[in-house]
């Protein structure tokens, strides 16, 4: 009985290790929250004292500026939040196209680097080292200069078969569209007239430069990730696969890929996040991404803190979203350990 009491005393509520752990965590959390609240209120108070107006109400005011390219119709009399939306869509457009492109290219080069063909290995090596080691901003500027400085002007574009046009105004190509009147797929071909191109799809040099630049830069990293994944699969596994008579394709599909994937996906996620975040460099070459639009909004309204907070929140959401998707993908691809 006495022994029981003693035990009870020693591990009463305050003395339990579990409780104390929780309390420390709670105190730390409250401390952080208090610090955050103080930072916020102090900033606001100081801004008020200096007569700097603050708040997110400006998002509903007329933007009053045009945006060069937009996936949704945008007019300068629409509110700022729509302008931010246009910027976000432009950022997503670069990110999605870039991610798809860099994955394909990166996989090809990564596979090339472990190939038995010396030429493929050498080219892959040269490519990776070149694109990995030149700063990405510089690469973007190089692409932009290539696309703008060295292309013919729109009066005399490079054209191929009257289907593809390339000039200082960008790249135009045909797309298949569904024509309801004839119930068939027809090609919507670009029409060139006196320097203007109508119909088809036209991509601006800004979009091309940012997408190509980021894709090539990131694909070098993806190639390394893929190579690491392939090399990580023990030789014995492949030899075992051969010895039981699996074909090359079966070996790759059933033995190599499942094991390589679990090494590849987590660092690949990182590269996708990097690409998305690097897309903010678009502002340097005049592509109207989220940062560019937000810069303009910041300057028209003077709401620096708000605009930067918005950008941070959006990139945070994009990154967390990408991570969540890739984690789900990883779970599906991961080998169930038995």
């Amino acid at each position, binding site marked *: 009985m006495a022994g029981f009491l003693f035990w009870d005393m020693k591990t009463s509520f305050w003395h339990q290790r579990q409780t104390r752990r929780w309390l420390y965590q709670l105190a730390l959390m409250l401390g952080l929250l208090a610090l955050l609240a103080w930072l916020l209120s102090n900033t606001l108070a100081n801004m008020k004292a200096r007569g700097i107006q603050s708040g997110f109400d400006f998002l509903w005011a007329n933007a009053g500026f*045009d945006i*060069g390219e937009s996936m949704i119709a945008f007019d300068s009399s629409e509110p700022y939040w729509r302008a931010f939306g246009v910027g976000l869509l432009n950022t997503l457009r670069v990110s999605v196209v870039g991610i798809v492109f860099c994955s394909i290219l990166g996989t090809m080069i990564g596979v090339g680097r472990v190939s038995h063909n010396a030429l493929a290995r050498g080219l892959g090596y040269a490519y990776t080292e070149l694109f990995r080691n030149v700063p990405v901003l510089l690469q973007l500027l190089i692409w932009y200069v290539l696309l703008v400085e060295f292309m013919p002007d729109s009066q005399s574009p490079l054209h191929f078969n009257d289907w593809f046009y390339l000039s200082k105004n960008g790249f135009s190509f045909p797309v298949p569209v569904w024509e309801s009147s004839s119930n068939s797929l027809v090609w919507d071909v670009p029409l060139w007239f006196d320097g203007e191109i109508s119909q088809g799809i036209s991509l601006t040099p800004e979009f091309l430069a940012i997408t190509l630049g980021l894709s090539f830069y990131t694909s070098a990293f993806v190639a390394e990730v893929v190579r690491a994944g392939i090399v990580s699969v023990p030789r014995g596994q492949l030899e075992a696969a051969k010895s039981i008579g699996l074909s090359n394709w079966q070996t790759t599909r059933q033995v190599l890929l499942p094991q390589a994937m679990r090494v590849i996906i987590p660092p690949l996620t990182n590269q996708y996040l990097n690409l998305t975040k690097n897309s903010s460099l678009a502002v340097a070459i005049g592509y109207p991404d989220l940062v560019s639009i937000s*810069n303009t909004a910041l300057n028209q309204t003077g709401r620096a803190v708000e605009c930067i907070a918005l950008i941070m929140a959006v990139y945070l959401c994009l990154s967390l979203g990408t991570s969540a998707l890739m984690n789900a993908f990883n779970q599906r691809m991961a080998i169930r350990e038995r």
Partner: protein
Amino acid sequence: MKNSPIKAALGGAAAIGFTLLFSASAWAGKTLDTIKQRDQMVCGVNTGLAGFGAADSQGKWTGLDVDVCRAVAAAVLGSGDKVRYVPLSAPQRFTALQSGEIDMLSRNTTFTLTRDASLGLHQTAVTFYDGQGFMVPVKGGIKSAKQLKNATVCVQSGTTTEKNLTDFSKANNLAIKPVVFEKLEAANAAYFAGRCKAYTTDASGLASIRSKEAKDPKEHAILPELISKEPLGPLVRRGDDEWFAIVKWVIYGLVEAEEYGITAANIEKLKAESTDPVVMRLLGKSDDTGKLLGLDREWLVRAITTSGNYGEIFERNVGEKTPLALKRGPNAQWAKGGLQYAPPIR
């Protein structure tokens, strides 16, 4: 690239954040006292706009905006060389001033209601009356801005220019497509590479860019239309009215000096010999106007000796003998049909 765009944006945010956080008590202090204490004035200028604010290969800053900084520094500290220049991109400039990083912003900045009323800043006096114009390659054959239908136009972000362009495009049904760059240098490069049909900014800026950046300035024409009013001048922070008054009156002093024929060259002679009551007052021989501003008697003498009067500053930096070759136009003295009209220094 000295500053990446994100760095600039985040730098701006960090600057405002940190200074707002940690300088609460320092805020109430007088800018003048701080400047005197560190014996240096900090002036925000353009990253490189020939004629207004640009550094040469030796790092020496020149330009109309720079000369205004020098004149203020001379009035306050006794020497026009006691200035540290902080080159600022358009999106950075207001944050730098709000956060106290600079004492005054002299960076071809347009005065508008929004900027005056919501940024916690004061607009001092207009040092240059400007208007937004367009520059086009001569070979394109465009003679009027109204011909810019569906045209791509290169423009720098963070300026009043973007909105003016949109207003003009809308009013004339032109559907102009802006290509917006954060850096002036990037916008210039894109235009001269042929990305855009036209380039738009303040007419003075166009002249500056054409003279400095074009391979052959004759290949580019500035169109006759001015689509906006752009009164440019220095800004200071709100909350320090004395400093506001000093900057404002140094500029007025330079303008009035031109009106009464006081130049850097003849100022000593006039000081010794002039009997004109206005000149005597300007040069501190009769009334002590400096005392009211918290300065000494000779404040304006030093400002004029350092930078010359307003007319001299104009001619030296942007006038007809410079590569910019701008006429006085609206920047002439009021008595000569211009807009430069200084309230009396008395």
